[in-house]
Structures are given as structure tokens and as C-alpha cells.
């Protein structure tokens, strides 16, 4: 009897403006462009998708349940540019059928560099979620589903009961992602993404070259039903922007979403659970040992999308090298700017993997090339560094 566990990632980075070495001011972000994208994605995805989820919760009288992880940088932008999106999430929270997950406020890679910063950002995020939606987070997911044994240990120490990860083949081997696992070093429940079924929706839904196209709700429900008897949960983890933004409305993605719960609930053994409920309902069946970092990105499922070349490694090291100086400066605006440039997207733009082939990396990239994004980023970082050095105090004149 598999439970279907939906988790949707909601994120919008604070994109940088064109910042040349000649710029001296501390306005790093492209407000106009960011607002424009926020409004566009709100209209194409967040608002219609939230309405659809709300209708489904009402229609199925609480039997349909989902979870979200909404980054702090996204929430900040929604509040500024599209407050109706925040309202619609609040309305979803009020149904009692929606769980909100914890992550780093700035969608950062801080776990790799600074446990202190990582902890602070999680604290900021859980407080924000609690303030907005009245929920205490018990499940954690790191940026881009980055995970290893140490991360499990770190978030267990912060009090979380469950953590999400990619169900990577090289760790699972013959085993199924449709069970709960535990890391070797700490007592926490690990929920693994079923990447085949998740990506059927997120990546392949509108691909006419795919032999299963067109994907219908009853066909998909049939695949989920096959798990019956060999799994307790089917974890469907994906970007929320799948609905209406990555897969446009005219592909039929909203119809698919609307009809899917009914098709799944047609089978008497199926139900919907949020990660918290999955963790409470099922016990681990085995050990999931991840000594190395994994993620849900690209085919490599590793960190190479953010740390694949010398520029990315350099930019990340340079940011966290500033941590001490930024904290010492005790300037809230400076601290926030430093945190906003930690968002993983800035490093994703610098990725040179597949750059020459022009693929998905390019689609989401506001820069003409990874080199341009690195140059722009380092100019901003130089300015941030300058601000950490206190301006010389004027000498007292006798």
C-alpha cells in the first residue's frame, strides 16, 4: 500500500544586475528583472497551481495532501512583488493538508563551507515558516537535495525527524527508493526521491519523443500501483515550476495534476501523505550510506553543476572566506547582501558542463556565458569585501 508523497520546491533567486568593475554602489540586484520574473511565474505557475491544489484538497476532503519547500529569498520576493502568492500559500496552510519543509533561507551551499552559517540560515527559515504559516518544521531538505551522512547528522542535531535525498542508483543498488532508510551514523529517517516517476512528470511530460507520451493520469496511476507490495511510499519530488513554467499550461500539465489524485485514490490501498506523516508511519528498512555528496542535479547527481570548475570553486571559497569579516562588521544590510549572493543559482550560472551544447543550463541562465556570470559575481563580491573594511575614522582635529 504505497503512500504518495508529493514535495514541491518553490524558489526564485535574487538575480544580480550587470555589475561592472567600475560600479561602486551597493545595489547588486536586478530589481526590475526579478519583479518581472516573479510576476510571470506567479501568473503561469504559482497562482494557478495553488488554486488547483486547493481545489483538490477540498474535492478529496483532506485525503489529498502535499508538501512544499519555499525558500526565504522566494518568500521575500513574493511579499514585495506578488503578495497574492503568499496569501494563496497561507490559504493552503490553513487546510491542514499541507506541510512546509525547512531548508536554508537563501537556498545556499553553506553546509559545504560553514556549519555556523548553515545553522543560522535554517533558523531564519524555520522562523519565517512558523511566522507565515504557523507550522513548526520537522522535515529538512537541503539545496538541490544535496545530501550525505554528515548532513544527516547535522540536521538531526538541529532537531529534525526526517531528511530528503535523491534516491541515487549507486547507493541504492538493487534496492528500491520506495522505502524509508536510515543513515549509518545517526537516527533520522531518510526519504528518497523516486527519480524515475518524478522525472516522468517534471522532465518528460511534454516530450513528444518519449515513447510514453502523452502521459495521462490513469497511466501514471498504473505505474504507481505497480509499487503495491514492494514499497511503502512513492516520493515524487520536483520543482513546483514544473506546473505551468517548465511544462507550459498548453501541454495539459494542469489537467494531469487535477485528475491524478482521483486516479491514484481509485486504488483502495493508496493514500497521500506528507513527509512528516511518512516518517511517522513507516520504519526504516535498511541503511542508506552516503559518504559522498549527492544531489538531484543533472545525470551525475553530484555537485558538479555548482563546483565543476575552478571559477565556481574560487567564487564559493571567496564568499565563505568573508564570513568572519562580514559578521564582525555587524551591519545588517551587509550581512543580508552577503547571504543573498550565497544562493546556489549564482554558481549554477558559472557551470561550463554542456555549455557548448546549449541545454537546460542555458535556458535558466540570464548570462551569455559562464564566464560573464563569474566576472559579474566577482565584481559584486569585491564590493562586498570592501564594505567589510570599516571606513577610516576621521582624525579628531585638536
Amino acid at each position, binding site marked *: 500500500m504505497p503512500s504518495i508523497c508529493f514535495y514541491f520546491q518553490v524558489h526564485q533567486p535574487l538575480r544580480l544586475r550587470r555589475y561592472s568593475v567600475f560600479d561602486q554602489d551597493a545595489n547588486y540586484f536586478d530589481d526590475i528583472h526579478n519583479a518581472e520574473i516573479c510576476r510571470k511565474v506567479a501568473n503561469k505557475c504559482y497562482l494557478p497551481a495553488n488554486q488547483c491544489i486547493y481545489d483538490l484538497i477540498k474535492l478529496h476532503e483532506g485525503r489529498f495532501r502535499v508538501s512544499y519547500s519555499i525558500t526565504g529569498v522566494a518568500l521575500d520576493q513574493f511579499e514585495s512583488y506578488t503578495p497574492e502568492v503568499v496569501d494563496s500559500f497561507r490559504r493552503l496552510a490553513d487546510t491542514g493538508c499541507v506541510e512546509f519543509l525547512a531548508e536554508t533561507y537563501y537556498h545556499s551551499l553553506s553546509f559545504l563551507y560553514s556549519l555556523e552559517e548553515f545553522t543560522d540560515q535554517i533558523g531564519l527559515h524555520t522562523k519565517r515558516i512558523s511566522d507565515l504559516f504557523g507550522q513548526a518544521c520537522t522535515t529538512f531538505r537541503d539545496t538541490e537535495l544535496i545530501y550525505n551522512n554528515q548532513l544527516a547528522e547535522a540536521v538531526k542535531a538541529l532537531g529534525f525527524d526526517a531528511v530528503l535525498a535523491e534516491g541515487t542508483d549507486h547507493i541504492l543498488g538493487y534496492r528500491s527508493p520506495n522505502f524509508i532508510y536510515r543513515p549509518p551514523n545517526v537516527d533520522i529517517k531518510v526519504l528518497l526521491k523516486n527519480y524515475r516517476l518524478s522525472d516522468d512528470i517534471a522532465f518528460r511530460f511534454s516530450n513528444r519523443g518519449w515513447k510514453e507520451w502523452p502521459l495521462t493520469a490513469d497511466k501514471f496511476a498504473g505505474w504507481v500501483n505497480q509499487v503495491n507490495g514492494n514499497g511503502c511510499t512513492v516520493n515524487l519530488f520536483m520543482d513546483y515550476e514544473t506546473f505551468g513554467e517548465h511544462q507550459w499550461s498548453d501541454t495539459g500539465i494542469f489537467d494531469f495534476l487535477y485528475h491524478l489524485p482521483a486516479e491514484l485514490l481509485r486504488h483502495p490501498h493508496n493514500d497521500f501523505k506528507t513527509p512528516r506523516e511518512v516518517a511517522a508511519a513507516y520504519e526504516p528498512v535498511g541503511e542508506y550510506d552516503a559518504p559522498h555528496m549527492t544531489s538531484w542535479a543533472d545525470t551525475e547527481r553530484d555537485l558538479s553543476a555548482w563546483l565543476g570548475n575552478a*571559477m565556481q570553486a574560487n567564487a564559493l571559497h571567496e564568499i565563505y572566506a568573508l564570513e568572519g569579516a562580514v559578521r564582525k562588521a555587524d551591519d545588517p544590510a551587509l550581512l543580508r547582501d552577503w547571504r543573498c549572493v550565497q544562493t546556489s543559482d549564482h554558481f549554477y550560472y558559472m557551470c561550463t558542463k554542456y555549455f557548448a551544447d546549449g541545454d537546460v543550463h542555458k535556458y535558466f541562465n540570464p548570462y551569455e*556565458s559562464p564566464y560573464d556570470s*563569474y566576472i559579474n559575481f566577482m565584481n559584486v563580491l569585491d564590493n562586498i569585501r570592501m564594505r567589510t573594511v570599516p571606513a577610516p575614522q576621521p582624525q579628531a582635529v585638536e
Partner: protein
Amino acid sequence: MNVFMLGWEFPPFISGGLGTACQGLTRAMSLLGHRVIFVLPHDVAEQHATHVKLLTPKTHESARAAYAKFKINSLENVSFRSIPSTMRPYGLETGGVKTGGIEKTTVRSQSIVADGETSVSFTKSEAGGERTVAVPGTVRSPSGHYGGDMFEEVERYAAVAVEIARNETFEVIHAHDWMTFQAGIAVSRASGKPLVVHVHSTEFDRSGTRVNQPIYDIERRGVHTADRVIAVSHLTRNILLARYSAPPERVEVVYNGISEDEETMQVPPPIRRDEKIVLFLGRITMQKGPEYFLAAAKKVLEYEKNVRFVMAGSGDMTRGIIEMAAEMGIGHRVVFTGFLRGPDVARVFKMADLYVMPSVSEPFGIAPLEALSHDVPVLISKQSGVSEVLTHALKVDFWDIDEMANKIIAVLRHPPLQVTLRDHGNFEIKKFTWTDAASNCIGVYGRAIRDAGRRRAG
């Protein structure tokens, strides 16, 4: 396939783009098993006997002209026919001024520029050399020893080419740039074989908007008469469509390659200094945008002190650019090397931290690929053919001096940027091969032959 190829220069008789391209292309064709008869407009054998192995050094006397046959080592299936010039425009190195081992003022110039004037003229040389003309593929001596009517030369070349063609067997004619288009058309008429013209640069690239009408007319006629046209980039193809009304269905793009077996010149490592070096290497002419390089240099120097800008090359703007650097107050940070050859080019690349090509209009631009092959990252103008295909390069509009300076500073400040550009770029250039270019040309020949056959049938 037997190809009757009409060229204007061929290494070692030149040192620039067109000749290098002809060499790369014919060598690759030769390796692919195709036969090439290459016609040159001058008696190379006589002046450059040390570089050339003469296989059949016999001279035919014909009614119209004499020509020589010879072969060059390593070009198995390529045979040459050269037409001795009565005007000797290729009297190289006679007037070159040598200073400290570096030739200062001579340069092979692809553009036709009147000495000391901005307008272009084609009068025969006069005493004193006031109005001499630089002929494409020649080294111009400062005193203007030679001269002559370029168009007369082109016509004579065409006439002799027809003579030569009479005794040769071939299926297609391939003409490189406007100087050989007349000859290509004439040979095509006489032999009935299809004509392919190859455009390495247009009059708009060389002269900006100050177009020389007679040259434009020849280019236009060539592009319209040919059965197929090869452009070295989409940039050039677009110029041919927009400015020459070339029939789009006949114009194809074939990118240049770089020599695969280029032996890396063994040069001693440069003396390591704290200074960073930003390199401009190319003719100092309007087309290459040297003034944008200087303007960017001035901005960079306001932020980075320990950097030197090296301008290697010469051209009709050299003096103006030197004066400009002095007026800007950055003369002490800009070094002019004059025209560099072989080992000196390798040496200057070895010293450079960044190569900048700020060209205003660059049909292809092989120099950035050479820089990358020497492990030097490149910043190239978006107004270049090579920027269509090279992804691991910094790119900038030639006029955007702020952005050019921004990117130069970034490379100087952030070694990881230099490393990433260099490593990826060095790998990427392996995709530019003359073998591919030659295969693509063979494909174009096939279509030209097919089209010509259809036309004859219809």
C-alpha cells in the same frame, strides 16, 4: 576530385590569413586524396627557392604569358602554377627597415590603402612613391618602390589562368577572394566547368563604409556568377546577402580550421615578471579596432597598475595609434613590437596573460584559435565570425570599451577565470580542423557540379 584552384598567396610567400587558409585547405584536400592545381599570380619559385622544392621547374612560353610549375613538400597532390609578374609587386624585404632584429614598418596588408591618404586610388606608381598602392598579399616598402594597376594585374592573372586551364583536367574551379574572381569566371566560361567562389573577406570588412566601387563590383559579379559561394562565417554570409544581394540558396558557410600538426615552437620561457601582459596581435588597421584596445587599456590602467599592453603588428594606423597612446598618457604602458614572425609570435604568446581581438569586422579570425593553442585565453569581438563557433572565450562588442576593460580586469585579477578559459578553450579548438573544412568544400563542389549540370540540362 580534381580542383582548379585560384589563389593570390600561399605560405611562405605571405604570412597572413588568406594564404594560411589556402595552405590548410589544400593540404587537407591532398590528404583526402583530391588533386589540386593551385594557380598563383607570381613567380614564387624564383624568390623563395629555399622553401620550395621544384619538381618541374620548366617554363612554358605561350602567346600570352609564361608560367612556372612546381611542387611544395608535404603537398602530395597539389601542383602549383605561378605567373611571373612583370610588375614584381612581391619584391619582398627589399625595403623593410630592420631595427633590432624586428621588422618595423612592413606588413602584409590585405586591404588596399593609399599611402598616407585615406582615399583609395589605383594609379600607377609615380616618382617619389606618393601614390603607390599596397597590393593584397604584398609587403609594402615605405618608400613605395613598386606600384602598378591592381586591376591590370587582376586581368592579366585571369588571362594567364585561362591559358593554364587549357592544359589541365579538372571538374570544378575554386577561386579565393576578389582578386581571383575574374580569373574564376573566365576559366569557367572557357572550360564550361562550375565555379565556386570563396569569400574570406569583403570590401566592407576591409574598408568599413568607404567602399572601393571597382572592387565591390568584382566581388558582386563573382558572387552572382558563381554556381556556389563559400563564406567563412554567417557574419560574412549575412554581408553577402545584405550588401551584395547574393542568392541565399547558393551561399554556404564553411568555417576555417587550424593546423592540426602545428609543431609547437620551442621557445625559452620568458623571464617571469610581476607584470601582467595583455596582447593585441594583428594588423594595426581600421578593421582590427586598435583604438578600442587602447581606450580599454586606459581604463584598465586606472584600476590595475601592474599591467603592460603589447601591440604586435603594423599597418597604416600604426603611427596614429602610437601618438594616441602618448596623448592618453599611457605610452609607458603600451609596447609596440612591430610585425612579428614565427618564433617571435610564439614568444609573445608565451608571455601573454590575455589575447584581445577587438576587430570592428572580422570575417573569421584565426588568431584567437592560435592564441588558445598557445594556452592564452581570449577576449574577442562579437563582430567576428569565430565568435559564432567559439564558446569558451570572453566576448564583447568592439565599441563597448567599458565592458572590454571590465573583462580584461577580471582576467588580470582572478586567475581561476584565466585557467578555466584556457583549459576549456584549448580543448574546444580541436574541433576546428582543416580536414572538416576541406570535406565541407568537397560537399560544396558536389552541389555546384549538380547545379551546373541541371542548368545545362534545363
